[in-house]
């Protein structure tokens, strides 16, 4: 006979949940009733156990979320508590982000600088190469794992906790971590690669996406809010790679849409006082796909417009679509243009949650949030937020003129760090000059 709803969490902890006093999403997760988890929760928790075992044996180093990272706990779909570090973060940037929507990353840095949070913007980071992996392309599991662990080792060396900006990297790393921990052969082969470059296996205790960081920082961001967002209606597109890959490790909250949607991004919209709207195709991909943007761009582009943009606009009349991944912002924003040329009318600006937060905190829409890179018309949205975009545009043009004339551009810099690197950047690539 099954006694209550006993849930095995890790090796030594067991919790008893009764139907009445557990919240919905915990119940879903613990009873494996959540469809998103695909029945792998147990395997996932087993993997975390194995990780601790390997650490005890001295096979791997775990980059723990120590107290010095000032962690905040969140609940994940597996029912487990995950520690999100809030300071001393190693910024793991995204390839597409820097290329297509630079405002995304500069807004995040700006928020951290405003809140006095030290971070490391390392030049010694490589691409996760998961783009190839999803494009049925050139890579393999050993190579992907090696790239993952190389980046994690760099962060560990710098004594900063990796904060992953890109949904694809985040999803890929979660999968790679699973492979490295559970498969001895991969571990052995990866270690030999890492040893060649003077590194070893360092696995972060938690893999953290930046949207989870914004989620735990939402109250502090809301305290710094300078604009009134109560008239703004925002819809959310959760990025597939963050919450569909190793689904059990992403953040959910009973109080955010009943725990039936991922919590980050929705939570920040609510915290900023904007109206959060829901739409029927929330679970659908942005159109970017796992490989479709590479091989079937007509379908990817059409999907973005017909399955995302149109339903959002028609069903909710939202002012802005907020998401938390590079590929999603780019695809959802850029794909509208062709449809508009065809004569379709529905359009909506697409920005990241970091840009929305920064705008609300009073960041410059062009110097910091760089909305000039976004194609869908953002003017009505800025007006609704009470931003004088014409004035800001003027300021931005002046700034460009000043730089053209040889003036110094301004940079966002990290507040001074409290932690010092574990080693003196012995592996850093020396950049001449």
């Amino acid at each position, binding site marked *: 006979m099954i006694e209550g709803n006993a849930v095995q969490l890790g090796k030594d902890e067991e919790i008893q949940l009764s139907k009445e006093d557990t919240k919905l999403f915990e119940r879903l997760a613990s009873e494996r009733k959540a469809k998103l988890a695909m029945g792998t929760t147990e395997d996932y928790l087993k993997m975390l156990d194995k990780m601790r075992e390997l650490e005890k044996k001295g096979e791997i180093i775990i980059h723990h979320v120590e107290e010095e990272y000032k962690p905040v706990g969140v609940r994940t779909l597996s029912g487990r508590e995950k520690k999100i570090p809030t300071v001393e973060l190693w910024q793991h940037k995204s390839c597409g982000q820097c290329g297509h929507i630079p405002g995304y990353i500069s807004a995040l840095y700006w928020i951290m600088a405003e809140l006095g949070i030290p971070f490391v913007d390392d030049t010694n980071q490589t691409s996760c190469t998961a783009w190839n992996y999803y494009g049925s392309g050139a890579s393999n599991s050993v190579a992907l794992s090696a790239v993952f662990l190389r980046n994690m080792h760099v962060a560990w060396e710098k004594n900063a906790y990796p904060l992953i900006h890109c949904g694809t990297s985040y999803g890929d790393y979660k999968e790679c971590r699973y492979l490295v921990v559970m498969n001895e052969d991969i571990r052995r082969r990866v270690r030999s690669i890492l040893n060649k470059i003077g590194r070893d296996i360092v696995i972060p205790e938690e893999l953290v996406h930046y949207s989870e960081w914004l989620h735990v920082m939402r109250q502090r961001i809301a305290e710094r809010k300078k604009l009134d967002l109560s008239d703004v209606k925002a819809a959310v597109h959760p990025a597939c790679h963050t919450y569909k890959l190793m689904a059990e490790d992403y953040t959910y909250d009973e109080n955010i849409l009943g725990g039936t949607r991922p919590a980050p991004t929705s939570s920040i919209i609510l915290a900023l006082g904007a109206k959060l709207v829901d739409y029927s195709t929330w679970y659908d991909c942005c159109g970017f796909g796992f490989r479709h943007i590479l091989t079937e761009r*007509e379908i990817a582009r059409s999907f973005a417009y017909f399955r995302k943009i149109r339903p959002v606009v028609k069903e909710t009349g939202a002012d802005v679509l907020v998401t938390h991944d590079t590929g999603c912002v780019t695809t959802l924003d850029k794909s509208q243009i062709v*449809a508009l040329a*065809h004569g379709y009318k529905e359009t909506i600006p697409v920005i990241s949650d970091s840009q929305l937060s920064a705008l609300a905190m009073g960041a410059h829409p062009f110097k910091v949030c760089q909305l000039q890179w976004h194609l869908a018309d953002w003017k009505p949205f800025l007006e609704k937020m009470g931003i004088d975009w014409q004035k800001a545009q003027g300021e931005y043009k002046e700034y460009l003129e000043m730089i053209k004339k040889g003036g110094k551009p301004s940079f966002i810099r990290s507040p001074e760090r409290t932690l010092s690197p574990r080693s003196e950047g012995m592996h850093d690539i020396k950049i001449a000059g």
Partner: protein
Amino acid sequence: MSDEEKGKHIVERKYVDDSRIIEPEKLEIGGIDVSGHWGTLVLPRTIEDFDNSMLKKVKSMPRGKNIEKCWQCGNCTAICPVAHAHPEFNPRYLIHIVKMGYSAEVEKLKDTVYFCSGCGLCSSVCPKGVDPQGVMIAMSIAFKSKKGYR
């Protein structure tokens, strides 16, 4: 633009129905030419509504009146000599799409109804007495006439 030319650059073109591709001859965005594959859109294939107007027409005809008895067992298609030669002709499927009112699918396949040779084998085996052969006749009339059978 002919159906064959439309969307020929789509990698998996053979899986996309012609009717779902929109590719105008000339398309411009802010003075930049995006004709051809730069401007192609593919409409979704989701069924968004049930349209029972065709069902009403078929039902109103003497030999189509039993269409609603069909429960999709496939006995008609199993025995149909034409279906063994023409994969496009499937009496079971035609009955279903008309009954449910999937108008885009009906539009795509309505010409296949004329493959029916009228042998009547289907009607002799149908466990529900749908009279598929009669339904095919009713459909062939209904698909032709805009107003329905009078």
